[in-house]
């Protein structure tokens, strides 16, 4: 009921303006720019350099991992199914209801997906989905806000001051005419805040000022651009002016972009908005969308069913379209470059509380979805988080995978970041590129 619907307001980032320039991600600055932005500026279009794309979906509130990847029998020498049965008297799913994960190598794991994840399950069986189990970090926080900040910063050992993809933008730079990182939503999340660069946020498409783009509005919008010249002696005011300037550039760039179809699912709509931009060759590399409601302290069963159904529909429609809604699949050339990744700030307690819900817990699974026949190594990665035994069930699930190893793999092997900083990547998540 009180779950975060998006990232908490940034707590930290003001310091950046005290120490460095607050350059916004460079946005196309001449209007109108559509489609071949790069060419318009004499720059190689993004598609031609084989840029990979990463779409991050934040499940805000703390997704119940124990009811997302579900034990169907005791396996791997554990009692995890017995413990699950014991601790989930009203919230459990029986093995015959669970969508069994039975790719080669999975059989003896005896794990399945929540019954609502039918399309993700089909993608899994098709070899498009990697599931990273038990993801967490040392010194786990049970706070929504600290947890969200840590996952977005990728730096749980310090007070977060930037995002793991924001620092990626710092390292790789942002070219003229590029729209490299976009959050669909109200605010710019921490994940896209770097020390020098940052992404932008858009509420949707079409994107325009309330007074239109005729001469009347244009004269005003040109004046807005001048707010960016505000003195650095007042860094917050300067930043406000830079944001106004960037907004003008953004509306001009997106002026002629066709609006995506609108469905009854808000998460689908946010992803379809991003898809329009991914398919428009703005050089878009990173997308962030968020959805709230996962903080299921009370009445979890129906809530969680609906949430996972929404996620299942959204990811599937985003990648594969929905014939019943006349939405085509993603442009194949873009789809072949696109990786979708989910995360949540924490999992939930194995034991139910008194409200047919669960309280804040630990480790949870990540879904990583790529194109069929692509470089995502399908299947289960890492071990199911520890559950203890029926005689001594774990108070909280025991994490098995440091999520930063996933970030490292994505940065190093998918986004080709020159110097990511998380140590060893999670092995075997992505197939290596063939030698040149």
């Amino acid at each position: 009921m009180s779950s975060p619907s998006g990232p908490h307001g940034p707590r930290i980032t003001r310091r950046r303006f005290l120490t460095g320039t607050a350059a916004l991600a460079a946005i196309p600055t001449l209007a109108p720019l559509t489609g071949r932005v790069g060419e318009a500026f004499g720059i190689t279009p993004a598609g031609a350099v084989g840029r990979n794309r990463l779409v991050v979906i934040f499940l805000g509130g703390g997704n119940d991992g124990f009811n997302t990847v579900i034990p169907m029998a005791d396996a791997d020498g554990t009692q995890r199914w017995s413990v699950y049965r014991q601790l989930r008297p009203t919230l459990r799913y029986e093995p015959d209801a669970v969508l069994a994960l039975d790719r080669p190598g999975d059989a003896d794991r005896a794990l399945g997906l929540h019954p609502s994840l039918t399309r993700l399950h089909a993608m899994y069986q098709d070899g498009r989905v990697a599931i990273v189990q038990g993801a967490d970090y040392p010194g786990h926080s049970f706070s929504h806000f600290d947890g969200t900040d840590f996952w977005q910063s990728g730096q749980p050992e310090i007070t977060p001051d930037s995002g793991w993809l924001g620092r990626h933008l710092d390292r790789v730079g942002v070219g003229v005419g590029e729209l490299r990182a976009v959050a669909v939503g109200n605010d710019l999340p921490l994940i896209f805040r770097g020390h020098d660069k940052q992404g932008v946020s858009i509420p949707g498409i079409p994107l325009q000022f309330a007074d239109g783009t005729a001469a009347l509005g244009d004269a005003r919008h040109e004046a807005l651009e001048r707010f960016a010249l505000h003195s650095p002696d007042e860094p917050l005011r300067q930043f406000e002016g830079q944001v106004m300037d960037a907004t003008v550039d953004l509306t001009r760039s997106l002026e002629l972009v066709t609006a995506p179809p609108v469905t009854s699912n808000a998460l689908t709509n946010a992803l379809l908005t991003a898809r329009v931009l991914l398919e428009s060759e703005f050089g878009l590399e990173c997308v962030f969308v968020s959805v709230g409601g996962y903080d299921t302290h009370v009445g979890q069963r129906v809530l969680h069913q609906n949430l996972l159904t929404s996620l299942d529909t959204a990811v599937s429609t985003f990648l594969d379209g929905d014939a019943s809604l006349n939405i085509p699949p993603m442009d194949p050339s873009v789809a072949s470059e696109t990786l979708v990744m989910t995360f949540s700030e924490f999992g939930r307690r194995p034991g139910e509380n008194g409200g047919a819900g669960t309280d804040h817990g630990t480790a949870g699974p990540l879904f990583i979805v790529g194109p069929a026949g692509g470089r995502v190594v399908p299947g289960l990665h890492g071990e199911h988080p520890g559950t203890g035994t029926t005689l001594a069930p774990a108070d909280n699930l025991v994490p098995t995978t440091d999520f930063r190893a996933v970030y490292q793999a994505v940065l190093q092997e998918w986004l080709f970041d020159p110097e990511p900083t998380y140590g060893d990547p999670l092995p075997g998540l992505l197939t290596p590129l063939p030698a040149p």
Partner: protein
Amino acid sequence: MGDTIASRADVARLLGRAAFGATAAQLDEWEGRPYADLVESLVAVPTAGSGARVLQPDDANRLVAEHGNNLQQGQQFWLGRMKTTLYPLEERTTLFWHDHFATAVAGQTPSPKLLLRQNETMRVNSLGSFRTMCQQLTVDGAMLQWLDGNVSTATKPNENYAREFFELFTLGTMPQVYTETDIRQAARVFTGWIVDANTLNGRYVTGRHAKDTKVVLGTTIPNLEGEEYKRLVDVALAQPVASKFVAYKLVQNFAYAPATRHLFDDPDPLVDEVAAAFVATDWNIQSAVRTMLLSDHFRHADAAAGNQLVRQPAEIVVHGAKATGVATSNASLLAPMGRCGQKLFQPPNVGGWPYGEGWLSTTTALARYSVAVTLTNVRNGQNVNLRMVFPPSSDIDSGGAAWAAHMGLDGLTPTTLAALQSYVTSRRGKPGATEAELQNGIFILLFTSPDWEVM
């Protein structure tokens, strides 16, 4: 500093941050008078904290919204009240408490009716005792539904309220002084409360209460039945970090986002002053706020170090309504204000709204612009006698002093003035560019300018 006299800039910034913005008349009225008198004019709300308040015309609108259980009417009531109240600091602090104890309408649990009741509880206590505020909100109907206190029982305690009570309402995490065990024990202390089906108020049911002895934050709490939660409020507020944490939140909402990440090891001077006032007065909010507004660290905060306030949407909407003569109860303002990121009675989550540069994104920039356009449209559609008269566009050519005063600013920064001059110069004389259109444009640009949004 010792400068006891309020400058025009003092008036503009104090009213801009603590009273939903200054009018030109207020700038003239207070410039040159004692700064402390100006602070006292805000802080001296009659009967603050006593529970009995001066009735205001808007109270009828609140009751209409409450009885109608209507969210939009409730939002219109409160925005209207922020503009028309005789005691703007009372509404400004109430808005702060709504953010601090963030509770949102979620269908009917909680309902708009319960949020409006909670809003009144916050208003009555807005400058009163923080201890009383904590006690009353712990067993508030909307809060019990929002953080699941109403389903938390002795056999199956629900931790939701206990965790947020420590993390967000009283102690924070800079540093975190409570453990997971404290949260679980506190959840047991808070058991026993439900929302009465008839009155919709919190009601204690002894059979649902955990009657064992708990130890929270090192203090043993015996079974005190329906009074036990008050003991836990006392235990929390006795923690040395509590006053600093609540002071930090006040400073963040009224002055600037302190850079400190540790309230003891890396203190902020204004936070420490405000915290000391809480301690000295047994949690009197009026004293703490007065201390904050009088402090040189508030009045002369270091803008170059980023110590300025990014005003939240409600503040600029209400201030903009003052400068146009638009009633903030006008329904057309609600949608663009929501796109700015702030819907009253619907904070995004229990952590409340963003702050500082969190308000400044390309998404919200478009929305702020929409608010400005809406304000001019509503103004221009009103009877001419209701419109605030805009200064002429020629004032911009000659330095913009009249426009600055009209917007409650002591002057325009050189870059903002230059931007406005470029607008007026480029647009004037073009087909259809009437004087009224130029004035609308100047208002819209000032409304979205750094000078106005950040103070």
